[in-house]
């Protein structure tokens, strides 16, 4: 099998990640509850490494949960208040759009959706604009958006800036310098396993999405005020956090090599994919995604053929990003997404190039 769906989830999992999961399964105790604190120590180490990766000075503000969707829901629903205006972009995933639509439908917020560029965002600022939400990199095209400039502008305007780093974290350096809230997936570029993710939030109050046991402050009828416990009800996913921690440690020590290898593979993909192929992505300013179609062929047909005839795993369809597809006018055809990582090889690239060439020639 040739796995080119790294944007969906990283594969294969690194040996250090697998070993971290196995080791975690051998750790006794429930974090923050048991008198044996080894599980708490493991989570603490992960929190500190994640803070370091994103340049966040306060490790209390690293919240770990079931994934990026939970993070986005928690932050959108836990920060926004009645009469807030929010600006987001057509490049967003449904995990951003749907919670926002929900609040809009309930009459809590008003919502503006525009292009993911500073000049467009500037045009839509209102007196009550409280938050701007932008994905760092499109999960459809891989395009990287200028979150530093947008964040600086938001800071000047006193507007909160939230970034969805699902497709960027691990693939490229991510800094929270100009970001108030950063939501991340644990199993994509950060190399962990499914069911783990989180967010980093600066000194902003976030109301918990769920309440429950935290291991502290038990007689308080409310969730504890202290972070991260304020936002971490219930038993933590220790194996998932161990996997994420191993992945983050790997990224911390290999970030430069990851960027270089992924750019190299992306370059080779573009060099090889010539002929009758329509691109929706480009080499520069991109995470390692190639978005393409073969004219006249349904993306599902191409993706399926790549899978059953060649053993190449890709993703087709709408990628849970409906507005990006409307923007690209690909609602009907969808897009075939090839997403690579440093774990892929030049042989993988050569193989998919030949396969797409054959499918393209097969009229």
């Amino acid at each position, binding site marked *: 099998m040739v796995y080119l769906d790294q944007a969906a989830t990283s594969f294969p999992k690194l040996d250090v990640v697998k070993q971290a999961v196995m080791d975690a399964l051998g750790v006794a105790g429930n974090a923050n*509850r048991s*008198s044996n604190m080894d599980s708490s120590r493991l989570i*603490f180490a992960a929190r500190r490494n994640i803070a370091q990766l994103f340049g966040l000075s306060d*490790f209390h503000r690293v919240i770990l949960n079931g994934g990026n969707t939970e993070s986005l829901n928690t932050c959108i629903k836990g920060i926004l208040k009645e009469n807030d205006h929010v600006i987001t972009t057509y490049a967003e995933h449904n995990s951003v759009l749907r919670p926002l639509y929900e609040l809009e439908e309930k009459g809590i917020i008003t919502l503006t959706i525009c292009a993911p560029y500073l000049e467009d965002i500037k045009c839509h600022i209102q007196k009550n604009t409280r938050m701007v939400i932008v994905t760092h990199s499109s999960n459809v095209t891989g395009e990287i958006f200028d979150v530093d400039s947008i964040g600086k502008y938001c800071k000047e305007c006193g507007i909160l800036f939230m970034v969805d780093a699902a497709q960027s974290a691990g693939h490229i350096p991510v800094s929270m310098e100009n970001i108030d809230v950063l939501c991340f997936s644990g199993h994509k570029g950060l190399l962990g396993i499914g069911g783990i993710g989180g967010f980093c939030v600066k000194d902003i109050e976030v109301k918990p999405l769920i309440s429950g046991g935290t*291991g*502290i402050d038990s007689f308080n009828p409310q969730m*504890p005020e*202290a972070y991260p*416990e304020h936002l971490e009800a219930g038993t933590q996913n220790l194996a998932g956090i161990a996997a994420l921690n191993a992945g983050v440690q790997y990224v911390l020590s290999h970030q430069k090599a990851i960027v270089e290898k992924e750019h190299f593979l992306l370059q080779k993909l573009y060099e090889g994919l010539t002929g009758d192929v329509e691109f929706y992505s480009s080499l520069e300013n991109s995470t390692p995604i190639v978005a393409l179609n073969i004219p006249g062929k349904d993306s599902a047909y191409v993706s399926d053929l790549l899978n059953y005839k060649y053993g190449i795993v890709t993703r087709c369809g709408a990628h849970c990003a409906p507005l990006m597809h409307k923007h690209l006018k690909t609602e009907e055809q969808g897009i075939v997404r090839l997403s690579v990582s440093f774990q892929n090889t030049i042989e993988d690239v050569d193989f998919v190039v030949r396969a797409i060439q054959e499918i393209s020639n097969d009229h």
Partner: protein
Amino acid sequence: MNKEEVLIITFKSIQDVLDLESKTKNGRMIPVPSCVKAGCGMCFMSKDLDEEKWKLFLEEQNVLYEDIVRVNF
């Protein structure tokens, strides 16, 4: 078993007791004794009873803490 006087440092977040544990060997984490605070959670216990020295250390190391008390434990 005979109880002895110890110094207990309490915290609002368990992250902070873990933070302190990573910075000193002069004591250990224990569940918060009920005479200090009802409920649950972890605190740091030390036989070193010099409260002022601990305050200075915690400040120097940027460890957030809630309270320092002496109890028989």
